[in-house]
C-alpha cells in the first residue's frame, strides 16, 4: 500500500449533513434562541440548530469519540469545530434539539459561547509542548474560563468578547487582535551556552536573527556576545539556536493586552494594546491574571454602550480615561518604543484625565 502524495484534505462535501447539503448557500438569517444555540433559517424554510459546546482544545481521542457518539444519536453523524476550538453539534431535526441539550447537560458539557459572550479562548501549547513558552497556555485558560464561566453560558456582556492566549512573544493565535490578549513574556536576556554554539550554531544567522542588533559575533571565543541593554527578550535567537536559553522561571510571566478585533463591523480591525506589562506565573491557577481580566471585563460591562466591543468602548472614552477608571498603573513600559512607536504618541493637546 503506497501512500499517495499530495492528495489534499478530505473533501468537505462528504462532511456536510443533509440539511446543509439541501440548504447550502441558501441560509437567510439566524437567531440565538438561547445561549449556546444558533438557529439558522433557510430561504427554503428549513431550519438547522447548532449547539455550541466548550472544548479544552487539548483533548484525548476518547473525548473525540464521545463527541461522535452524541453526533450519531442527535445529528445524523455530523458535527463541526469552530476556529475558536468549540464543538458544534448540527441538528437538522428540531425534535432532537431538547433531548440533545438534556444529554449534554447530563454529561457535563458546557453549552454556550454565542452572541454577547466569551467564546472560548484561542490558545497555544505552553509548557505542554512548546519550546519557547514564558507561561503555560491550557492551565491559564482553564483558570480564566472557570472564573469567567458565567459569561460563557449567558449573553449578558455588552458585545462579544474574544480572548487569545499566546505563551510567548510570537503571539500565535491572534492575541495581537483580540478583545483581551494574554501573552507570556520573558524579561531577561538569553543565557548563552558557548559550548553549544561552538558545536553547531551558524553564527551569522544567529546574529541576523536579533531584531535590535543586540547580538554580535565574538570570533575569539567562536561564540557570540549579547548586549543586554539592547535585548528585549523576544526569544527569536533561541528559535535560531538552542544555545540561547531564554526561559527564566524566576522572571517569566504574563502581560495583558486589550482592545483588539479582527472584524470590520462598524470599526476597522485593530491591534490589542498592552495595559498590564507583567503578572507572575502563579501556577496552577494564576489568581492575579484571572482577577485582572475579571476587573477589566466588569469595568467594560459597567460602562460600555450596548453592542460596543471592549476596544470600541476604550477608544470612545480614550485610553487615558480607561487608565483612570480602571486604576491600573500606567508606566513607561506601556509606551511603545519599537518601529511604529511614533504613531502611538499623542500628537495633540486634547485629552482627558
Amino acid at each position: 500500500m503506497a501512500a499517495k502524495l499530495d492528495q489534499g484534505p478530505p473533501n468537505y462535501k462528504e462532511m456536510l449533513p443533509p440539511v446543509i447539503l439541501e440548504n447550502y448557500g441558501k441560509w437567510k438569517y439566524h437567531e440565538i434562541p438561547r445561549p449556546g444555540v444558533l438557529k439558522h433559517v433557510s430561504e427554503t424554510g428549513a431550519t438547522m440548530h447548532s449547539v455550541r459546546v466548550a472544548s479544552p482544545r487539548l483533548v484525548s481521542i476518547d473525548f473525540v469519540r464521545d463527541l461522535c457518539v452524541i453526533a450519531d444519536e442527535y445529528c445524523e453523524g455530523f458535527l463541526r469545530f469552530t476556529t475558536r476550538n468549540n464543538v458544534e453539534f448540527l441538528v437538522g431535526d428540531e425534535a432532537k434539539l431538547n433531548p440533545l441539550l438534556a444529554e449534554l447537560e447530563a454529561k457535563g458539557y458546557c453549552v454556550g459561547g454565542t452572541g454577547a459572550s466569551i467564546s472560548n479562548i484561542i490558545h497555544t501549547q505552553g509548557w505542554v509542548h512548546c519550546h519557547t513558552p514564558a507561561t503555560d497556555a491550557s492551565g491559564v485558560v482553564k483558570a480564566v474560563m472557570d472564573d469567567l464561566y458565567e459569561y460563557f453560558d449567558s449573553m449578558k456582556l455588552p458585545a462579544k468578547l474574544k480572548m487569545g492566549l499566546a505563551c510567548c512573544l510570537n503571539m500565535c493565535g491572534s492575541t495581537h487582535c483580540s478583545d483581551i490578549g494574554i501573552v507570556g513574556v520573558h524579561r531577561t536576556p538569553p543565557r548563552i551556552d558557548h559550548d553549544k554554539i561552538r558545536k553547531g550554531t551558524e553564527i551569522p544567522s544567529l546574529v541576523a536573527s536579533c531584531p535590535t542588533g543586540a547580538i554580535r559575533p565574538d570570533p575569539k571565543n567562536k561564540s557570540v556576545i549579547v548586549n543586554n541593554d539592547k535585548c528585549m527578550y523576544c526569544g527569536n535567537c533561541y528559535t535560531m539556536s538552542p544555545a540561547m536559553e531564554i526561559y527564566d522561571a524566576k522572571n517569566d510571566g504574563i502581560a495583558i493586552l486589550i482592545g483588539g478585533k479582527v472584524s470590520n463591523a462598524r470599526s476597522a480591525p485593530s491591534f490589542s494594546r498592552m495595559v498590564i506589562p507583567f503578572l507572575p506565573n502563579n501556577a496552577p491557577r494564576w489568581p492575579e491574571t484571572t482577577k485582572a481580566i475579571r476587573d477589566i471585563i466588569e469595568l467594560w460591562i459597567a460602562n460600555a454602550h450596548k453592542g460596543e466591543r471592549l476596544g470600541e468602548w476604550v477608544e470612545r472614552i480614550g485610553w487615558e480615561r480607561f487608565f483612570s477608571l480602571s486604576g491600573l498603573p500606567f508606566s513607561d513600559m506601556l509606551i511603545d518604543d519599537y518601529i511604529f512607536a511614533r504613531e502611538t504618541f499623542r500628537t495633540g493637546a486634547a485629552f482627558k484625565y
Partner: protein
Amino acid sequence: MTEKKTPLLDELEKGKWPSFVTEIKRAAVKSPASAELLQVLERSYAERRGHWKHGGIVGVRGYGGGVIGRYVDEPETYPNIAEFHTVRINQPSGFFYNTKTLRTICDLWEKHGSGLTNMHGSTGDVILLGCKTESIQPIFDDYSEAGFDLGGSGSCLRTTNCCVGPGRCEHACYDTLEACYNITNEFMDELHRPMWPYKSKIKFSGCANDCTGAIARADISVIGTWRDSLRIDQNAIKEYAAEEFPIQSAVVAKCPTHCLTYNKETQELSVVAEDCTRCNHCINLMPKAIQAGKEKGATLLVGGKSTIVQSAFMSSVVVPFMKMEVEDDFEEFKDTVRRIWEWWDENGKTRERIGETIFRLGMGKFLRETEIPPVPQQVFRPRANPYVFWNQEELDQSGTAMDGSEVKNYNK
C-alpha cells in the same frame, strides 16, 4: 506504569470549564508517553518553566514538512517522550466532519501516537500531539491510505483555512469552503515543499466579520464583499419595527458612515449606496431585513502576520474587489496570488513575511512589479511625505544625472 502524583495539575481538574488535565489523564491510561507528559508537565508547574527542546528535522518521504520535531530536555528521565513529535493533518474545509472520519483519525492515532490531539491548531490543521520518530512514516502511510494528507510546516504555504461559509452562514459572499478546498489542491506543491523565504498563509472569510481572523493572521486574506448596493427588504424592516427592535439607535446611529436613514413614520430604511463601506454592521443586526448586494466577490488583502520580528502587521487591501467563482476555477485569485508569491520569492529575505517585504521595498514597487493597479482603496490615506520615487525613463533625462552628463554642461 506507576501512578505518580500530580497535585498541582489536579487543581486544574476543578471548576466548570472542561479540563485538559483530565484529557491527558484519559490518554495516559493507554499511552505511556501521555503518562510521562503528565509528569513533565507537573514538574513545569512546580518549576514554572517548559521542558521541551528544539525541533530537529523529522519528516516523511516526498514531503518537506508537515511534522514538527519535539524532544524533552531530559530524555533519560522521560524516555517515552524523548521524541514527542507533532503531526499536522490537513483538516476538511470549515472543520466539518462526519463521525466516521473523526473515528478514523482517532483509531490511527491510538495505534501510533499519544492519543492526544488539538481540534484544531490555530492555523487549522488537526494537530496530533506526540509520537516517536520511527512512527512518522507509518503514520503518514496509514493516514494517507485513509484519505488524509499532511498540513504545512516550515517556509511553505501553510495549511489554508476558511470560515463556515455557505455551509451555515447567511453572510457568505463567496463559497469559502469550495475556495479553500479547490485552492489548497491547486497549491499542493507550495504547501508540502518549503521553498520560500518564510511561511505564507491564506485564510478565506466569507464576509467582513472575518471569522477566520484572516486580516490579522494570514499573509493572503480573502474577505467576502460585494460591489453594488446592499439590499433592504422594507417588509422585514416593518417586522423589526413591530417587534420594537431599536432600528434608529442600534443600527442607524451606529453606522460608521451615516449612510442609513430610518423614517419612523413610514418605517422605511434607506441607504445612500455610495457612502456605504460594506462594514456589515447593519446586516449583522438585522439579517432578516438587510442583505449584501448581488454582485458578490472578495477583497484581497496582503501582508498579515503576528509579532515576531518587526511587530504585528495586519493585511492591507491589494485588490478591492475580485470575483471568486467556482465556475472559472478561482482563476483571478490564483493568477494574482502566483504573481504575489513570485515577487516575494524573488525579493524577500530569509524569515521575512510578505508584509515585511512590501514594507521594506514599498507598496508602489510591489504593485508595479506584480502588475496590480494602484487604487485609493489600498490606503487609508495617501502619503504625508513628499518622497516620491519617479520613473526616470518617463522624465526628460537630457542634462540630469541619469544620462551621465557633466554638471558643467547642464549649467549652460
